């Protein structure tokens, strides 16, 4: 397994473009800390983001995993091109001739994606922990380490999304087209399927069907945290609206994304096995 990871690492790290992208991705995660530095100081109005309670434990786990998962699109470029380049350079063919089995080939890509998801999760954990320790109003251990399921959700979300990217890379064989396909798929889910089911079976059915679609189910893992923020909630209540939303991470949601992950990896393997190179 280590050998497969090393093989993929040599391929990625010696490529200037992917090396720059990988480093920038992790630097960007670190940059989340910069939100703390946002400060407005206009005469009588003083506004310091960090002091508004957004970095309070355990809310910070939710907020930061949500922000960081926005960066995954950036990483999708690396994943898709690391797969598609194997086709365009014909190195996939050479790898197989050199004695890598098709299973090992897929495994080396999946292990790499897995490793990146783990590292990314650890990064988000550390950045949030440090930010929280600086700015949180509560620093009791039991509070700090509550709601850690958002990190698990973040990890599952990355793994699922990257597996989808891997699959698209193999399916389409061209990085640019694969990324285009990703966007088209997003449109298919949100416009095509959502309204098709709505039209056929009504709003309720549409909402429950959406939960099972790959991109939507990944998006559902971590719900937007903005409206959960106290300041926003009190604002909404002033307007007179009642506010009830379920923000928690559900087990069945993780299960759905887990299923998609295995489906994508399995389909990638089948495609590779069936195709003549």
């Amino acid at each position, binding site marked *: 397994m280590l*050998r497969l990871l*090393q*093989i993929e690492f*040599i*391929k990625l790290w*010696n*490529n*200037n473009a992917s090396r720059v992208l990988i480093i920038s991705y992790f630097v960007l995660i670190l940059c989340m800390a910069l939100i703390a530095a946002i400060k407005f100081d206009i005469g009588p109005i003083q506004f310091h983001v960090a002091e508004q309670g957004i970095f309070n434990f355990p809310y910070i786990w939710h907020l930061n995993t949500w922000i960081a998962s926005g960066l995954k699109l950036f990483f999708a470029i690396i994943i898709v091109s690391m797969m598609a380049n194997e086709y365009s*350079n*014909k*190195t996939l*063919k*050479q*790898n*197989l*001739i*050199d*004695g*890598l*089995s*098709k299973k*090992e080939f897929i495994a080396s890509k999946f292990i790499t994606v897995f490793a990146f998801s783990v590292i990314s999760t650890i990064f988000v954990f550390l950045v949030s922990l440090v930010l929280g320790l600086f700015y949180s109003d509560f620093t009791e251990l039991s509070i700090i380490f509550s709601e850690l399921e958002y990190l698990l959700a973040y990890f599952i979300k990355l793994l699922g999304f990257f597996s989808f990217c891997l699959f698209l890379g193999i399916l389409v064989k061209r990085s640019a087209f694969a990324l285009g396909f990703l966007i088209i798929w997003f449109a298919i889910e949100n416009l095509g399927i959502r309204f098709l089911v709505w039209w056929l079976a009504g709003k309720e059915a549409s909402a429950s069907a959406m939960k099972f679609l790959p991109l939507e189910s990944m998006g559902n893992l971590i719900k937007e945290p903005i409206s959960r923020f106290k300041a926003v909630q009190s604002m909404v209540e002033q307007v007179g609206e009642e506010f009830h939303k379920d923000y928690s991470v559900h087990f069945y949601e993780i299960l759905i994304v887990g299923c998609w992950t295995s489906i994508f990896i399995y389909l990638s393997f089948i495609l590779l*096995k*069936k195709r*003549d*190179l």
Partner: protein
Amino acid sequence: METILTVNNLTKKFGYLTAVKDLSFNIEKGNVYGILGPNGSGKSTTLGIVLNVVNKTAGDFAWFGGNVSTHSALKKVGAIIERPNFYPYMTAIQNLKLVCKIKEVPEDKIEEKLEMVGLLERKNSKFRTYSLGMKQRLAIASALLNDPEILILDEPTNGLDPQGIHQIRGIIKKIAAQGTTILLASHLLDEVEKVCSHVVILRKGEKLYSGPVDEMLTSYGFFELRATDEPALMNFLGNHGSFGSLKQENGLITAILKEEMDASSLNNDLFKNGIVLSHLVKRKASLEEQFLSLTNHNK
């Protein structure tokens, strides 16, 4: 003798097109094999199948007696097919290190193999800066990293300039001299004739011949004869039991032998029968003539 590769009734169909039809042959250790055939005769497809990149339709093949899986057998094989494929953004050394990882062999042979193909000075240049000849030589170095039991080369001199072709052939001969089994696919006959001891000849995916090169040149050769009294000569040859077909062209008679006969005894016989020759040459058919006659006969 140890069998390296056995191919049994292998068939590959691309839709309605049959690229390889019911092909069987064996590769024994220590020989240099040529797979000969015109373009599109199924050479690359056959190699693709045994190298695990093309899926077979029917039949089977076995590496090293069939006791190992194809992908682990390939770790003991060195192969280059069509174009050299490497990561363009990596240097020769980095590319070869990756191959070592895949083949699970130590990295200490890299320099030695680069030296052998004459690329040691360019070892730190990126692959994309290489000329086609250099790329092809790097591919050979890469195929040799594991000191393979068999080296498979598919059209190794395709698209190279005469100097490049010469270099590659020199390298192949050097490797063959070390006792490595080689399987060389080519449509260049002189290439195969110069290097190979055995041949498999394909046409439209079917095997026409497989066996030693010498036996393929089965004929006992032929005589080219010219005499003043042509009808008498034709008459004599026609009645002689040792000759097969006779051909007359521009006053030159070509008589193909059915059994061994040397030029002096023929000359002697003819003289005794009162036929005086003005031209007598005994020749062996070249691989090219044999190949053309084989591929034409079976149309």
